[in-house]
């Protein structure tokens, strides 16, 4: 098991490195001009050269990526206008446009995104699994058809339209905005409530459908019939024996979903004005802010490979037949 995890971590690191190199290459292949953006419309060639020099953009791309990698592992120094700035490991560089260390920007943005995604996940897991399980038990009745019908409707609405409708019409909800959890958990929660409901309800539709299908299959299994023949209550048969088997596939989907939501909460963040990772990278994208973009890519790829590993390990706890090795 430990050896397996070690192997997986090593392969995860190589995936992250490949992703970083590919993003770097894509950035330089594209017609990007970060120095021009910083310099503005009335820019003299000397000033442009100055900026390029201070951002090391005059160096070849290969040497730039080498110093970037070196910065992550051991830290690096920046030489701007005669002053030397120490950037200790893990150094992800300084934002071209904001002048701040990328690590600091990410550290500020990550809790916002994590708060949105995790809070939303609580909502959609609770609502989705409960509704799906109930629908599976009354399969074929009008209640079941109503549930399936409403999930179809919710899923047919594009997410940003749904989020906009919530933002525009659900005015009874507290104003959204991000307040750190540690300052005041109550304002933290009220500021995120609208985003949670939005993420939660749209995804709940999908999770209702997953759990319904999964539970219908589980409740038809022979071992559920065996459980019923023991003389335990129907509730225990469904929620202990059925749900235990029915939830396992849902957990797999959830792990991957969570990773994608962490890297793609842009709509939610923009519409509810929450300064998360999505907003940060989107802004960096428009301004050719390479270090911030690379930071976003790094966080995203790490989250994806880590979630994959977590799902695989979680599986060994959920299904005793699965052994890693």
């Amino acid at each position: 098991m430990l050896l397996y995890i070690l192997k997986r971590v090593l392969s995860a690191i190589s995936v992250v490195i490949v992703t970083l190199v590919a993003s770097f290459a894509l950035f330089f292949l594209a017609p990007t001009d970060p120095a021009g953006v910083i310099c503005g419309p009335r820019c003299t060639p000397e000033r442009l050269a100055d900026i390029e020099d201070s951002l090391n953009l005059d160096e070849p791309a290969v040497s730039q990526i080498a110093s970037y990698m070196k910065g992550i592992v051991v830290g690096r120094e920046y030489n701007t206008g005669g002053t030397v700035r120490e950037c200790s490991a893990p150094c992800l560089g300084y934002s071209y446009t904001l002048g701040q260390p990328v690590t600091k920007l990410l550290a500020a943005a990550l809790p916002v995104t994590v708060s949105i995604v995790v809070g939303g996940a609580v909502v959609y897991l609770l609502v989705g699994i409960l509704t799906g399980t109930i629908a599976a038990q009354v399969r074929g009745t009008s209640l079941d058809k109503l549930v399936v019908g409403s999930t179809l409707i919710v899923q047919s609405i594009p997410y940003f339209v749904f989020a906009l409708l919530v933002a525009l019409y659900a005015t009874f909800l507290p104003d959204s905005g991000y307040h750190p959890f540690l300052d005041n958990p109550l304002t933290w929660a009220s500021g995120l409530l609208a985003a949670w409901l939005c993420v939660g309800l749209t995804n709940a539709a999908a999770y209702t459908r997953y759990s319904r299908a999964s539970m219908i299959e589980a409740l038809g299994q022979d071992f559920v019939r065996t459980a019923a023949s023991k003389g335990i209550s129907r509730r225990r048969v469904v929620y202990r024996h059925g749900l235990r088997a029915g939830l396992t596939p849902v957990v797999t989907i959830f792990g991957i979903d969570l990773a994608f939501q962490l890297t793609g909460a842009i709509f939610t963040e923009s519409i509810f004005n929450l300064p998360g990772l999505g907003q940060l990278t989107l802004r960096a994208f428009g301004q050719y802010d390479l270090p911030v973009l690379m930071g976003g890519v790094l966080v995203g790829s790490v989250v994806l490979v880590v979630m994959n590993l977590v799902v695989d390990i979680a599986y060994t706890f959920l299904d005793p037949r699965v052994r890693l090795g």
Partner: protein
Amino acid sequence: MSDQSTQAPHTVARVPRNPAANEEAYLEVTDLQVQFPTADGLVRAVQGLSYSVPLRRTLAIVGESGSGKSVSSMAVMGLHDRKVARISGSIKVGGREIVNMSDKELEGYRGGDAAMIFQDPQSSLHPYFTIGDQITESYRAHNNVSKRKAKDRAIEMLGRVGIPNPRRRVDQYPHEFSGGMRQRAMIAMALVNDPKLLIADEPTTALDVTVQAQILDLISDLQRDFGSAVVFITHDLGVVAEIADDILVMYAGTAVEHGPVNKILGEPLHPYAWGLLESIPALTGEPQPLHPIPGSPPSLLAVPTGCPFHPRCEFKDRVPGDLCTTLKPDLIPRTADLGRTSRCHLKEPDQVFQTEILPRLP
């Protein structure tokens, strides 16, 4: 089974292990009907089934897939979803009526007075719970005991059904057991509450032949010790000869023949039972072509009028008029022997068997 190597199954001279069936019935099924309304129409899975089993006796229910043997036993266990299945008639277990019992009462009944062993232990045990967990759950559902006591009981039961090293095995998962061991664990689970009625639904079908014999011996031994009534569902006539006291042959949702095992296997009276015997391959002498019963079992959506077996019956021309196609025969004694009943219009079926069927058997 030892005398089977020298004698064909139909002449098994079997000494009944148990006294004759004039004891009081523990399980009594009377005119049981099970129907499932579906989009295609009403599926009449069981149509007027009646039988009884006293304590310490074994009834084998024999028939093809879809003959209603499993459906009727699920009804005896109260396992049908009553929103889906329509059940009428009477099922009395130890004097208690099961049909129309409330859900709460059924919970106390299932797994307590009556327990069931299922066909495929691979799929019938929960893959995510340990064997011990699954046995103790059954025990604690009917006995108000601590987890520790229940686990001791589970270990005791595992030892009882011949699982070596039960103290270690109790914490293992079903996938760590072999097929035969899994079925033993399943039996331990069914017997943990000393049920007076045990229903075994093809418990050896998924097992290989050597393990089959062990499991059959185990069930017989346990039945003797626990003194329970056993209903044994199977389509294997060799298993029937081994384990049963009485046989009920089912066809298209009804019983077509019922009586003591040595009589029915020695001299069956229904053409369907004849067909079953003829379709057993001979293991001695010159290889002979098999004689399967022509045609296939009827759809339970549209059961044939009259005798449900008439479309496949080679003797229907012997019955005067169109009795076979218009009138369903009663399940009544057809010979001087009143202990056995069959559902066929044919006159003197014992003579027909002796003169026409017996010579054809290997």
